[in-house]
C-alpha cells in the first residue's frame, strides 16, 4: 500500500511485461515441444503472428449469440490482466498486489471462467455446453485442492497476501521445507488442471471426445478468439509466475532500483525457461487421461497438500 511513483512505474512495467511477453512464453513452450517431438517449429514468435492475424479477421457470430458471448472475451482478458497486476512477477512490492490476496486471486480467475462457461453455452450447440460442463467440473474439483495448498503455504508465511508471502520467502535462507515441497507438488498438479495442459486437457486438440477448454471456446472467431487466446497465454504465464512467487522467488526485486529490476528480469527469464522445459517434458512423456480420471488426479493434489499441512504441524 505504498504510493511512491517508483512502485507505480514497477507496477506498469509488470503489467506490460505480463501482457506482452505471454505469447513469447507460449511460443517457447511450443518450440520446445516441436523439438522434443522431432517436428519443425513455426518459430518463437508465431503466437504474436497468430494474434495479430486474428485481430484483422472477420468475426463470425452464431445467429443465436447474445451480448454475453460478445462481452466474454473482453471480460476474460480484463480479469486475467488484473490478475497479472496482482501476482508479484518482477517485484515483491507491486502496489496492486495488496488489492487481493491469493484467495481473491483464485476468485478473479473464477470470474473469467464463469463468463467463458456462459459463452460456451450461448451459441446453443452441443460442443460449447460440453466444454463448459467439463471445464466447470475440473475447476470445482481443483478449488479445494488449491485452497489446501494455499493453506499450507499460509501456515509457513502466516499470511495469504501475495506480496507478503513472497517477501517472507525471499528474505528467509534457502532451505528445504517438507510442507512447501508437498504444497509445490500439489500446486503443480493444480496448475496443470487450471491452465488446461496435458494430462488433464490438451490445448492442441479439437477432437470432440477429448476437448475441455477448446470446446468451450470453439465458437469464438476473429478478434474475440485473439483475446481469448491471448488471455490463455497470459494465464499460463501467470500460473508459472505464481509458482515462482510462492515457492522460488529468489532474485525477485524487493524495491524499485534499476539494478534489482535487471536481476529480477534475468532470473525470471531463466526460471520461466526451466518451467517451459518441465511443461514440455510432462506433455511429451504423458498421454491425456480420460476425463473421469481427472477427479483422481486432483484428489492426489488434494492429498499432497494435506500431507504438506500435516508435515508442517508435525515437523516444523
Amino acid at each position, binding site marked *: 500500500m505504498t504510493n511512491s511513483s517508483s512502485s507505480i512505474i514497477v507496477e506498469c512495467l509488470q503489467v506490460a511485461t505480463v501482457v506482452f511477453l505471454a505469447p513469447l512464453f507460449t511460443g517457447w513452450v511450443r518450440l520446445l515441444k516441436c523439438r522434443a517431438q522431432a517436428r519443425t517449429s513455426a518459430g518463437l514468435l508465431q503466437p504474436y503472428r497468430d494474434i495479430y492475424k486474428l485481430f484483422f479477421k472477420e468475426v463470425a457470430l452464431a445467429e443465436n449469440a447474445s451480448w454475453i458471448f460478445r462481452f466474454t472475451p473482453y471480460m476474460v482478458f480484463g480479469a486475467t490482466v488484473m490478475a497479472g497486476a496482482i501476482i508479484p512477477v518482477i517485484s515483491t512490492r507491486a502496489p496492486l498486489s495488496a488489492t487481493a490476496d491469493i484467495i481473491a486471486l483464485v476468485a478473479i480467475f473464477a470470474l473469467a471462467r464463469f463468463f467463458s462457461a456462459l459463452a460456451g453455452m450461448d451459441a446453443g450447440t452441443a460442443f460449447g455446453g460440453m466444454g463448459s460442463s467439463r471445464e466447470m467440473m475440473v475447476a470445482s474439483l481443483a478449488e479445494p485442492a488449491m485452497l489446501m495448498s494455499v493453506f499450507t503455504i499460509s501456515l509457513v508465511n502466516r499470511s495469504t497476501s501475495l506480496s507478503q508471502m513472497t517477501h517472507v520467502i525471499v528474505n528467509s535462507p534457502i532451505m528445504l521445507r517438507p510442507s512447501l515441497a508437498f504444497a509445490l507438488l500439489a500446486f503443480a498438479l493444480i496448475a496443470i488442471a487450471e491452465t488446461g495442459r496435458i494430462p488433464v486437457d490438451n490445448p492442441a486438440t479439437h477432437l470432440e471426445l477429448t476437448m475441455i477448454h477448446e470446446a468451450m471456446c470453439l465458437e469464438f472467431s476473429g478478434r474475440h478468439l485473439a*483475446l481469448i487466446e491471448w488471455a490463455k497465454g497470459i494465464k499460463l504465464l501467470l500460473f508459472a509466475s505464481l509458482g515462482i512467487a510462492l515457492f522460488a522467488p529468489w532474485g525477485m526485486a524487493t524495491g524499485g532500483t534499476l539494478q534489482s529490476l535487471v536481476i529480477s528480469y534475468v532470473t525470471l527469464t531463466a526460471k520461466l525457461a526451466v518451467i517451459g522445459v518441465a511443461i514440455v517434458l510432462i506433455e511429451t512423456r504423458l498421454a491425456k487421461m480420460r476425463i473421469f480420471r481427472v477427479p483422481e488426479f486432483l484428489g492426489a493434489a488434494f492429498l499432497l497438500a494435506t500431507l504438506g499441512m500435516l508435515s508442517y504441524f508435525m515437523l516444523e
Partner: protein
Amino acid sequence: MPFFSPLPLAFSSIVIFLMMAGLALLLQNRQTFLVNMAFFLSTVSCGIGLYAGFEAVASGSMQTMIMPIGLPDLPFYIRVDALSGFFLSLASLTGLMVSIYSFDYVKGILSARKATKLVVFYCLFMAGMLLVLISDDAYFFMSSWELMALSSFFLVSFEDESAENRRAAFLYILIAHIGAVMILLSFGILAGFAAGFENFMGYRFSAMRSAEPGMLWASIAFFLAFFGFASKAGVVPLHVWLPEAHPAAPSNISALMSAVMLKIAIYGILRVCMDIIGVQVWWWGGVVLVIGLITAVMGILYALMQVDIKRVLAYSSVEHVGIITVGIGLSMIFTSFELRMLAALALTAALYHCLSHSVFKSLLFMAAGSVLHSTGERNMERLGGLIHKLPWTSALFLVGALSIAAMPLFGGFVSEWLTFQAFLLSPVLPNALLKILFPLGAALLALTAALSARCFVKVFAVTFLGQRRAVPTTETHEAGMSMRLAMSIAAISSLALGLFPSFVIDWIDTVPQSLVKGRIASSAGAFGWMWLTPISAERASYSAPIVFIGIFAAVAVAWLAFHGKKAATRRSATWDCGFEKMTPRMQYNSTSFAMPLRRIFGFLFVVSESVRTSHAQPGSAPRIRYSLRIEDRLWYVFYKPFSDAAYYLAKQANRLQHGRMQIYLLYSFITLITLLVFA
C-alpha cells in the same frame, strides 16, 4: 423514549402490517385497489423498519418495553438491541424489495384468483417475523414464531388446488412444529433453572440469561434450541421441507421465505444459543460447524441435480444456510477459547453472509418469478434463449448468479472471503485436533463455492442462453415496471455489498461486540474505506473498489483498442459438422450439464437411470426414452422409517374405530370406570 428511536418505529411498522391484514378483509371486492394499497403500506412499513433496524445497529444501544397484554401477570417483554436491529433491517430491506415487486406480480395472478388470502397472510407473515425479532420473553417469542409459521403455511398452500402443493405445505407445517416443540423444551429447561419449575417467572430472556443449568442440561438446552431453529433454517437433515415448500409458494413469498424466514431462524440460533445460553465448551461449536459443512456441501450438490429453477434456488438456500452455520460454528469455537477477535471475525462473516444472501436470493427468486410469470415454465429443460426476450430479467439474474457464485466484486464473495480468513487463522487454536480438522473444513467450503459457481453457470446458461428447448405455450413478455424496479434495487444492493464491505462491517460491528465481546472494524478499516484488512495488512487484504476499477479499466482498454471497425462482424449459422440442421434439443441441458458431477458424487443420491429403446415399426429408427430419477438419500434414512412407523401405528390404532355408536359409548364407559377406580 422518543418516538423516532428504533423500538417505537419497529413497533409501528408491525402495527401497520397487522392493520393492513385486518383491512384486507374489508376490501375483498376491490382487488386491484387492495393490492395497490396493501403493497404500498407494506413498502412504507418496511422503510420504517429498515430505518429502525439501521439505527439500532448503528447506535448499538438497547431499548426495552413491557406490553401489558397477553395472559394475566405474564406481560409481553419487548427489546430491540444491535442483534435484533441487524435482522430487523435485513428483513425490512428484503421486505421492501419484495413489496415493490409484488405490485405487478400479484396483479398478474388476479385474473386467475383473488388475492385477498395472499395479502392477509403476507402482512401477517411479515408482522410475525418482525415480532419474533423484538420479543424478549419465551411466551411472546413462541406466539410470534407460531404466527410466522402458520401464516407462511397458508402462503405455501396458496395455490391449493394442486396435491403437490398441499403435500408440501403439510410437510412444512409438520417439521416446523417438530422444531417449535424443541425450541419450547429448550426454553422450558432454561426457565426452570432460572426461576424454579413451580412458577412462570423464568420465562423472560433476561431471567434465562442468569440461569445456571449445569453442563448436562445446558448442553441439552443448547442442542434442543439449535436443532429446533435449524429445522426452520433448513439445515441438513432437517431440510426436506424446504425444496418442497419454496417452489410451491408464489414467487414473492418464496423470496421472503428464503431470504428472510431462514434468517429469522439464524437469529434464533444466535439469540438463544449464543446470547442466552452462551457458548461454554468448544465441541458445541464443533458440532455446529460440522453440521454446517455437511449442509453446505449437500445443499449445493442437490441443487446441481435439479431441473426446476425454483427448486435449485431452494436447495441453494440450504447451501447458504450451511455457510452461515459454518461461520456461527467457527465463532462459537473461537469464543469458547476466548479468542474474541477471531470470534468477531467469524461472526461478522456469518452476519455479512446473512445480509448478502438475503439480497441476492430475493433477487434470484424474484427473477425466477418473472421467468415463471412470462413463460409459465419452471422446468429449465423447457427454457432457453430467454436473454433475447427478457433483457432486463436476464441481466439482473446474472448479477444474482454472480453474487451467489461468490464471484469477486459481488455480495457473496466478501462473506466467503471473511469465512476463509477465519478458517486460515485456526493454527492459533490450542487444540491439535481442531488445528488439523479446520483446513479440511475450509477445503469443503472451497468445494461448495466452486460447485455453487458451476450450479449457477448451469442455471443461467440453460434458462437464458442458447435456444428455447420447447415450443413456448404463451407469448413471452418482459416483467412489469415494479418487478424490474425491485430487482434493480436488489442488484444494486448486491453490488454495493460486494464493493463497499468496510462500510457494512463498520456498521454491523456493534453486533459481535455485544455477542462475543470482540470487534474487527478498527482493524478491518484501518487503511481507509477502500481496503478490507480483517486482521492486519500483512495477513490479508482485499480492496474491492480497486479490483473493480482495475478489471473495468482493463476491459475498457481492450474494448477501445480492439473493438474498432478493423474487421466486420457477421452473423451466421453455427457449424453443424456437416450433419443435418441442429435442433435446440441437441444443446446441453441442465441434466447433461450436471452429468459429470452426478457420476462423481452419485453415491450420495439415490439415482435411478434407465434407457428404453423401442421400435415403432421395423426398419424405422428406434425411439429412445431416457428417464432419470434422483432422490434424496437422507429421506430414506431419517424420514421414511418414521413415517412408515407412524403410518403403521395409525393403522393399528384404527382398529379401535368401527363406526358404531355403541362401541364408542362403551369406550367412554370403560374410560370413566378406569378413572373412577384410580382417582
